[in-house]
């Protein structure tokens, strides 16, 4: 009956309130939760949020970055130490959405959303859940089961070596729109061959996923058209792309290798 907002000083206290009520929802920037309420989702009646400082902190030190879950995409765009992530944050929504959309919310955003989470997956980020580190991949796999009501305080990852992080989002409207496919990659090279590769996809399953077959096929190869050919041949392995208003599953599968190729060969 009706809606209400409860703000707690700590994430732990917010967690208790969530645990106590099945009809409470955590509120980040609200771009998805408030939208649901506006659209008549009556499964929840209480917004719960926390004002804890750590939620909005960004620290970059000793080769690691830690970003509070409440940090917005616009903040990331403005953060000089996270310049490599600016294109990712800029790819989320329009100007107003970026001023509201948080990192934490992005981890929970259903397909076709979750562009920032794709980058976090490629960066092999850890999430701080109840003070414990949980790998982004583990979290995403259990997003609607074990971790469905988990509260994320922050995300952290080792800063990638300059020039190794790559990101592309294909959409159907210019300058931007919702994703057809999103790809993030961290590709390291030594002596002309790829020494390690982490590739993550958005919109190729119901949540961001890694592409282990591609990663394996890249290691030891040159980052050239011939070198990556075997990786492209297995680009869609393990994917189950959705069909939605933006694109069909078929279309996503067809264009994924094209975008992957361009991304891998980009400077």
């Amino acid at each position, binding site marked *: 009956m009706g809606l209400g907002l409860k703000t707690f000083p700590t994430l732990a206290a917010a967690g208790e309130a969530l645990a106590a009520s099945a009809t409470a929802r955590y509120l980040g920037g609200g771009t998805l939760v408030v939208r649901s*309420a*506006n*659209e008549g989702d009556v499964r929840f009646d209480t917004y719960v949020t926390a004002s804890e400082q750590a939620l909005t902190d960004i620290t970059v030190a000793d080769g690691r970055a830690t970003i509070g879950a409440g940090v917005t995409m616009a903040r990331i765009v403005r953060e000089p130490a996270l310049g490599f992530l600016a294109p990712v944050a800029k790819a989320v929504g329009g*100007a*107003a959405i970026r*001023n509201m959309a948080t990192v934490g919310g992005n981890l929970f955003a259903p397909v076709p959303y979750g562009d920032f989470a794709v980058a976090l997956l490629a960066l092999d980020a850890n999430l701080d859940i109840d003070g414990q580190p949980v790998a982004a991949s583990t979290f995403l796999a259990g997003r609607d089961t074990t971790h469905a009501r988990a509260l994320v305080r922050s995300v952290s990852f080792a800063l990638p070596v300059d020039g190794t992080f790559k990101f592309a989002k294909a959409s159907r409207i210019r300058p931007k729109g919702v994703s057809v496919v999103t790809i993030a990659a961290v590709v390291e090279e030594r002596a002309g061959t790829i020494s390690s590769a982490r590739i993550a996809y958005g919109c190729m399953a119901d949540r961001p996923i890694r592409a282990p077959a591609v990663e394996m096929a890249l290691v030891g190869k040159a980052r050239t058209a011939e070198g990556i050919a075997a990786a492209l041949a297995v680009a869609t392995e393990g994917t189950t792309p959705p069909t939605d208003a933006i694109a069909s599953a078929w279309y996503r599968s067809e264009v994924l290798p094209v975008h992957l190729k361009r991304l891998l060969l980009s400077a």
Partner: protein
Amino acid sequence: MKKVPVQFTLNGEDKAEFVESGATLLKALREKIGDTSVKAGCQQGTCGSCAVIVDGELRLSCLTLAERCDGAAIETTGGLAHGEVLHPLQRAFNEGFATQCGFCTPGMIMAAKALLDGNPQPSREDVVEAISGNICRCTGYEPIIQAILAAARANSLSAA
């Protein structure tokens, strides 16, 4: 329904209202304060018709809870003109045929204002990017882009 007090400034004027807990800023502005320059086009965040400026940042009032704006400075297109004197953006939209049905106009002007406040001399690309979260179904956008660029030029002339 529980009511909570909220205070903010709207276009420089103090406002204090009791709003329903969990109500959006859109509802508070339109239904409590009566600023209907803020339009409800989708209430999903996709159309930008409800865009307002909160503490200098462009926001979608349909996805922002009113309670979270306590103490904020809010700007809307309804408060942009000084009496009869239009803001340069309003003048440029009017003279440049950047409106047709007019429904997206207030949100579009707010998106443009947020851009020009931070970047008085934007490129065409900056303008396109800044209004990429605002949908116009009538104009095809070109007159809007031109109007925003014209307003930026007018601003720089008056500043010079």
